[in-house]
Structures are given as structure tokens and as C-alpha cells.
């Protein structure tokens, strides 16, 4: 693909992302006209219930969608590159399971008098981060001992299985009322992200994105396999630790604030590689930032069910859209996939 064509696709994606961002601000149960939304945004309106809705509810939600979409997609790229597996996504290392386990534990403890933590969203997020990071460090510790990526992948999936079974046991012994809190968390939610959370979420995701771009040269060489990468000068250990740290932090923090959001991380890297017809990581990572952000913003708009007063759980919408995308790409490129995976 020519450089000019690549640049045009980037321009188109940036415009798309911006349009969805504005559209997401316009969408919601309260009826606020697009013109009014813009004038509120540009500070031309006095404080009102509408400006409260825009600044306190919709802007945090749209910003969360933007950064979470970008962060999950880039984490997906990193995982697919590390494991050279098209099905890998941000959660294969088990970070979301670690977060889920901690959240489930908190919900259960909520029944034993520690419920004050549950009432503070940040408290719940903090425990989820502890869970995600604990699993990340466990995987990192194992990665020091296990040298091949396939074993690491299997171990990651096993850790995820292990934590989910513990979650299952906890669920079994939890009262239905408390259980509902946990179930709601697993639906994923962008509205749960408050403006204060963004001060934490945005810097972490941004650092992850910049860090990912900084290792793109090594990621490209990793396409040739672990041995070839080493022989072309890549410090395999260093790059693997960097990938685990970035994904653990980004996916862990995202899960903590918004719950486990499915499919975006797996689908977007495929979509981007297919769009740009390249495996070059500078293009794939940058493209995934714009595409991931756009797609999650679009999912958020759909989940608001414009024109109605109800909202769907974001996780169901991302799966409804993400799964057909993967199927479509695979069917479209069946020869490509058959010969390579």
C-alpha cells in the first residue's frame, strides 16, 4: 500500500473518531440538541442541568470510550504479536480474571460488613487493580522461568480458568442480592467511569500507548518468530516483560474502571491489519488507537439506544459488533488465514 493511501486512511479514521466522539456527546436519554451541546462545550452556556449532564456524565463517558477503545485495541495488538496467535486479546494473560476475582471477593465481603468499599466506585476499582496487577506479576514471574511464548499463553489461560472457578465458588455462596452487584460489573460499563477516575485512567492508557509505539521496531521483528527476533538483535526477555507490563497495566486498569469489555481488543487489530494491508506495527498500533476508539464510541452510541430511555450493557454491544467483524474478516481472507494460521 502506498504511503499516501496510508496517510489518507489515517486522516479518515481521525475524522471518524472525532465525529463519533461528538455524536456520543449528543446521544443520551436527556434531549439536548447538537448545537446546544457544542455551545456548552465551547463555554458559551451558563451552568445548567444540561451543562452538568454534558460535563459530568457524557464527556467522561465519551473520553472513557475513546481511551478504553484505544487501550484495549493496542493491548490486543501486543498480545497477538507476543503469542503470534490471532485469537489472543488483552485478557489472555488473566488480568481481567484477577480483577474479577477481587471484585467478586469484595462483593462477598460486602455481605460481611465491608460494604463501605463497594459504595465508593474508586474503592472497587482499586481492589480490581490490585487483582489485575497481582495476576500480571504472577505471569511476569512465570515468564522469567518459562522461555517460550506458547507455554506462557497456556499458563495465562490456566490462571484465568483457575480464578474464574474461584469466582464461581464465591458466587455459589453469595446471596442473590449481592451477586447482582457482581453480575452488573461483568456487563461492563462506561457510565461507571467518573470524571475523577479519568485522572488515573487517561495517563495510564496514554503511557501504555506511547510505550507500545516505542517498541514497534522490536514488535516487527518478533513477527519472524522468537529465534529470528533474537538473531536480529532483539532482547527477547526485555521485550516480553515490556509487553506483559503494558498489557497488564492498561487492560488491568481499564477492567478495574469499566469492567471486562469483550471483543474490541481481539477484533480491532484484525480490522486494522485488513484495512492497511500491513503487519508493520507502527501502522497497526497507530491505526488501532483510532479504530479502537471509534469502534467503542460507536458501540457506546448504539448501547444508548438513541430515541429511547433504555441503555444496553456495553459488553453485549461490543460482542454483537466485534464477533461478526472477526467472522467477516476471516471469511473474506480465508486463503490468507488458511495458509498462515
Amino acid at each position: 500500500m502506498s504511503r499516501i493511501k496510508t496517510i489518507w486512511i489515517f486522516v479518515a479514521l481521525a475524522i471518524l473518531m472525532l465525529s463519533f466522539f461528538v455524536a456520543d456527546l449528543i446521544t443520551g436519554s436527556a434531549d439536548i440538541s447538537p448545537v446546544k451541546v457544542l455551545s456548552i462545550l465551547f463555554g458559551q452556556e451558563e451552568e445548567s442541568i444540561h451543562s452538568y449532564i454534558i460535563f459530568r456524565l457524557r464527556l467522561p463517558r465519551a473520553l472513557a470510550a475513546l481511551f478504553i477503545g484505544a487501550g484495549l485495541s493496542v493491548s490486543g495488538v501486543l498480545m497477538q504479536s507476543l503469542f503470534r496467535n490471532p485469537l489472543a486479546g488483552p485478557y489472555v494473560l488473566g488480568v481481567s480474571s484477577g480483577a474479577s476475582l477481587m471484585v467478586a471477593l469484595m462483593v462477598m465481603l460486602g455481605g460481611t460488613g465491608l460494604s463501605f468499599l463497594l459504595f465508593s466506585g474508586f474503592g472497587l476499582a482499586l481492589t480490581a487493580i490490585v487483582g489485575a496487577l497481582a495476576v500480571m506479576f504472577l505471569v511476569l514471574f512465570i515468564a522469567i522461568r518459562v522461555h517460550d511464548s506458547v507455554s506462557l499463553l497456556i499458563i495465562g489461560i490456566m490462571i484465568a480458568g483457575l480464578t474464574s472457578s474461584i469466582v464461581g465458588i464465591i458466587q455459589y455462596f453469595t446471596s442473590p442480592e449481592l451477586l447482582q452487584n457482581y453480575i452488573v460489573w461483568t456487563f461492563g460499563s462506561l457510565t461507571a467511569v467518573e470524571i475523577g477516575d479519568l485522572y488515573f485512567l487517561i495517563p495510564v492508557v496514554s503511557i501504555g500507548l506511547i510505550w507500545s509505539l516505542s517498541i514497534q521496531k522490536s514488535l516487527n521483528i518478533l513477527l519472524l518468530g522468537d529465534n529470528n527476533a533474537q538473531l536480529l538483535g532483539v532482547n527477547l526477555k526485555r521485550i516480553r516483560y515490556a509487553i506483559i507490563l503494558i498489557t497488564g497495566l492498561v487492560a488491568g486498569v481499564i477492567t478495574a474502571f469499566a469492567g471486562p469489555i469483550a471483543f474490541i481488543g481481539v477484533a480491532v487489530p484484525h480490522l486494522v491489519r485488513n484495512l492497511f494491508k500491513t503487519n508493520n506495527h507502527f501502522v497497526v498500533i497507530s491505526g488501532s488507537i483510532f479504530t479502537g476508539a471509534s469502534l467503542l464510541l460507536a458501540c457506546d452510541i448504539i448501547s444508548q439506544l438513541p430515541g429511547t430511555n433504555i441503555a444496553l450493557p456495553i459488553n453485549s454491544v461490543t460482542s454483537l459488533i466485534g464477533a461478526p467483524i472477526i467472522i467477516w474478516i476471516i471469511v473474506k481472507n480465508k486463503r490468507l488465514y488458511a495458509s498462515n494460521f
Partner: protein
Amino acid sequence: MTEQNNILTTNDLQIGYQGKVLCSSINLRLQPAKMVALMGVNGSGKSTLMRTLTGLAKALKGSIEIEGKEIQKYSREDLSRLLAVVLTDHINAPEMTVKELVGYGRYPHTGWFGRLRLEDLQRIDEALALVGMTEFKTRHLYTLSDGELQRSLIARAIAQETKLIFLDEPASHLDIPNKAMIINLLKQLTEDQGKTIIYSSHDLGMVKKYADIIWLFDESGNLQEITFQQGVESGLFERTFGEGYQSA
């Protein structure tokens, strides 16, 4: 020639994996611009020796020197400017083009961002021309035949501009014309560009025609440095490969 002229030296080297010793007391002295065929029956240690000499596997004992400096004293990055390796590993990158693949050979010479400069693009074109793959430049890897892919991988190693090139069975699954073409190309690299080539092979006919030196894992598992003539006359080939080796 003095010791310093050797491009590759091993001293009392012992190779193996997970504590299992495959071969001991390997003392090699290799001068530049030679074509070395690494031979032996399956499981004798060819791949392990190659992995050890390229720094992918640790030596159980002894030392390896490249240009007079111990291999552990080089960083992975420095080593990638000294030796290129063509492995049989599968490359899982459906969208990669031949030019991109060969371009990865330039990575040890590029900066932090990995951007290819004009000089790098020239080296890529030269390497592609050498292996006769210029017109395949924009093709995706999955559209190539085995022979074309192997030639592209060799072009990648050439583009890496190293003095040493290791190849793990470079012609094993190729047809006769492609096999001859590849081995001939490697020979040319030693003669025209002074590169030192070490490749593993089971093909005695090709080895006879092109290899300057043979490193042979003999029937008792020792590594012998011989010429083809010596292999035949001493009966080493017969003892290693069995009586019917000539018809193979």
C-alpha cells in the same frame, strides 16, 4: 594463517540440552570465506551445534569465539551485525511482503525507530537481485513457493551484511533446480563477497561439489573436520551413513 585470522573458533566446546551431552571436545578453527557443510545423521547434534554457535543455546562447557572475542561478550545486537541465520522456523505474518521480509535484515543497522534509509533500500534491492527475486518484491509471503520463500529468506540474511551466515538445511524441501540454485548462490557469496557460510545438509552430492570443509558428526558422536575426499577415503562416510551412502 595465525589464530587471529580465524573468524570462528571453539575451544573444548561441549554441546547439548537440558543436561544431556550431545558432543564434547569440539575444537574448531574456521578461516573466513569458506563454505562449511555440517553433516551427520538425524539427532546427531547439527541443529544444537548451530544453535550454540549462533548464541541461541548455551554451551555446556568450553568457549566460542567470533573474530577472537568470546560470544557471550557480544550483545545480541552486536551479534546480529556479525552473523545472520536462516532458520526453518515458520513465519506467521500473512500480510508481509518479500520486500518487508528482506528489509528486516536491515534492522540491526537501523536506528531506534527502524526507519529504512536510502542505503538500506539499496542493500535490499541488491540482495533481492542476487537471489533473483527482484520481481517478487511486492508479493505477499503466502503467495510464494517453498523455493521462492527460501530465496527470500537468504536475501534477508544477505541484506543483514554479516561476515558469517548460518543456514539450517537450506535446501531440504526444495526440488533439484532450486536446490542447485540455492547452493550455487551460497558458494558465490563465499567467492565474490568473502562471506563464511555454514550450512547443514544431508545431500552428499551437493556437499562434494560445493563445500570447502565438512564438519561431520561421526558414528561415535564426535565432530570431525574433513574434506569430502578424506570422508570417502578414510571410510568415515561409510561408517557414519552406512554402506549405501553413495547411492543416497
